[in-house]
């Protein structure tokens, strides 16, 4: 059993040995790099990583450079989870055969992918990895849009968001479908651990990543990743937007253990109205026209309902 890394405070955390370099091409203000560092810094174990095609991938491994100081692989848009599952399978085979070069080391296998690569095109591959019980962690960098290709809707894009393929216009309020509940779907694979995390709540994040790395079996992590470019906010406001997301309960932070024990891991002292979260982002600007204001009310109702549901599940332990 590997030793769980002790993280005392943010200063120590942010300066701990870094296996993801600051030298990358991500947008200023992008939350992806923050999340990746938080995930990687949560452990001292060796890492085998993958990224599915997307912002993170195209911005961190542009030949002849790499931002990764741990073994990393990218194959395609849909199969980053399976790439890491393949590596994990080889690890098991070589361990059994006594052919590991450093047999005393215990690597962790982590695949990073966007919401498009996870909720949509990579859905089947992730489902396969979860069902088969690979000892891997899949982390979704959930910015609710195909950001790398310029802002098309994914099945993670929420109602009322203006995306390039579901743009708000004179007769449209933008995206018509609500976000897919990927965490519930993944938990339903009977995996030992599924959780939602946010980069602003780094202690909660580290705890969950460490829990995920300690369990035996597949782990699913959904990380909210505010996107300055597609959500349309000032790059300096990334953490502020993340705070609005968690404190308005639009992104509740919780975990599901073995698909029955649901724990809410963050209860904001002052819950802010969803309206504030929406108002801070250009992608929801049109909702503040008179004819669409009813959608803001519906948003609030949906968030309240989901929060009540999570609370009921937490209490019922089902």
């Amino acid at each position, binding site marked *: 059993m590997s030793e769980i890394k002790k993280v005392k405070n943010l200063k120590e955390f942010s300066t701990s040995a870094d296996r993801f370099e600051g030298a990358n091409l991500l947008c200023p203000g992008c939350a992806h790099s923050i999340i990746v560092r938080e995930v990687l810094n949560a452990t001292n174990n*060796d890492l*085998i990583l*993958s990224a599915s095609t997307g912002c993170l*991938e*195209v911005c961190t*491994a*542009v*030949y*002849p450079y*790499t931002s*990764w*100081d*741990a*073994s*990393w*692989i*990218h*194959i*395609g848009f*849909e*199969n980053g989870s*399976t*790439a*890491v*599952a*393949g*590596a*994990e*399978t*080889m*690890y*098991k*085979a*070589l361990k*059994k*055969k006594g*052919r*590991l*070069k*450093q047999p005393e*080391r215990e*690597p962790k296998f982590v695949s990073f992918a966007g919401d498009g690569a996870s909720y949509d095109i990579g859905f*089947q*591959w992730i*489902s*396969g990895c979860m*069902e*088969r019980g690979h000892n891997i962690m899949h982390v979704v960098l959930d910015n609710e849009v195909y950001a790398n290709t310029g802002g098309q809707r994914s099945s993670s894009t929420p109602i009322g968001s203006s995306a390039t393929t579901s743009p708000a216009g004179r007769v449209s309020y933008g995206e018509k479908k609500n976000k897919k509940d990927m965490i519930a779907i993944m938990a339903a694979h009977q995996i030992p651990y599924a959780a939602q995390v946010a980069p602003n709540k780094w202690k909660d994040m580290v705890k969950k990543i460490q829990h995920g790395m300690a369990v035996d079996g597949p782990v699913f992590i959904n990380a909210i990743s505010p996107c300055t470019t597609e959500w349309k906010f000032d790059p300096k406001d990334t953490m502020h937007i993340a705070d609005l997301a968690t404190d308005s309960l639009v992104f509740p932070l919780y975990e599901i253990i073995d698909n029955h024990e649901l724990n809410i891991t963050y209860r904001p002292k002052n819950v802010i109205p969803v309206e504030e979260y929406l108002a801070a982002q250009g992608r929801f600007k049109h909702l503040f026209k008179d004819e669409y204001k009813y959608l803001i009310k519906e948003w609030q109702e949906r968030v309240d309902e989901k929060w009540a549901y999570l609370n009921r599940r937490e209490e019922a332990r089902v």
Partner: protein
Amino acid sequence: MAFDKMELQKIEVWDGNFAAAQALRQCQIDVVAAYPITPSTPIVEGYAKFLSDNYIEGEFVMVESEHAAMSGCVGAAAAGGRVATATSSQGFALMVEVLYQASGMRLPIVLNVVNRALAAPLNVNGDHSDMYLGRDSGWIQLDAFAPQEAYDLNFIAFKVAEDHDIRLPAMVHQDGFMTSHTAQGVYTLTDDEAYGFVGEYKPMNDMLDFEHPVTHGVQTEEDWHFEHKARQHNDLMTKVFPKIQAAFDAFEKLSGRKYNIVEKYDMNDADVCVVCMGTSVETAREVATEMREKGIKAGVVGLRVIRPFPFFEIAEALKDVKAIAALDRSSPNGAPGMLFNEIAGALFNTDKRALLSGYVYGLGGRDLTKAHLVSLYTELQANVDAGKVTTQLQQFIGVRGPKLAFL
């Protein structure tokens, strides 16, 4: 070692699928990630059963699609070990995206392709449509005409693919059902001989070497993409054939069975010849012998290596014949057949350009009969006698309805 060896008879009665499965067992594959599809399924079922019975120490992952199968193989190979799988037809087509990635990432995976038609209309029987679909994917492609060869060529494939000068994935093709499900006598190697031939896997740029982290599958744009592709092509064009020849030579020393990049049959004094692949080679050889009794000097050229294409070896094999038939078992869908085109290319700048005609045959498992080949050789002789191609350049043979000919 913790697993059990298997005592084999000197000759076993195996179909092509089981022969390939036995070869995978003897190569001691570390990881197989696979998805079932007719007619290749028994290969990976065989591997799974060997694993269950402790004849292999490794891991078998039954994934949820062929795309995931090849994705898992890529991840496993990049991690640093011996990897193989098998597929056919639609499964092969689904894998295609990842085939290019496997070769571009220089990962020596061995893929057994049990050739089968591509839908629509759906068809489970053998033709070469899937084999042709893979021909630009950057893989080495070896072709078995019979179960014995499906067995032997797996060893050759690992030997060449895993060579550190090569590091390219390789396919071993066999014809669906005609080879994969037809049991024949197969001369075996002992487990020690077989493993000794392929040797222990020597990792390179392996992700599991934690002291040397490696980045696989990078982004390149107009500044580096071309150089990567050019280098891969260069290695296929210049390095693979010498390694294949060396592997053939070493294998002959071990087994007594001789393989050639281009397999010639009665070609020393042939006037007319057929160039084909797969099980048709054996049928053509039988008919060629019979044609000689009728006074037609017939020969056969079979392609043992499809990629890289044996450009000079083909030209050399065909340099003295007067008429050639290129037999393509895949619908060219709007062009001359692949073999027709490539043979034409190989001969175009040579002094002696024989009369070349193309035939499309056997789609969806339609039999190529001896009668077809008799009339084909007769047509070639007529071309020789007339000093020109007397038919259209592309004919469909064995198809019902009015005769189909083009060009």
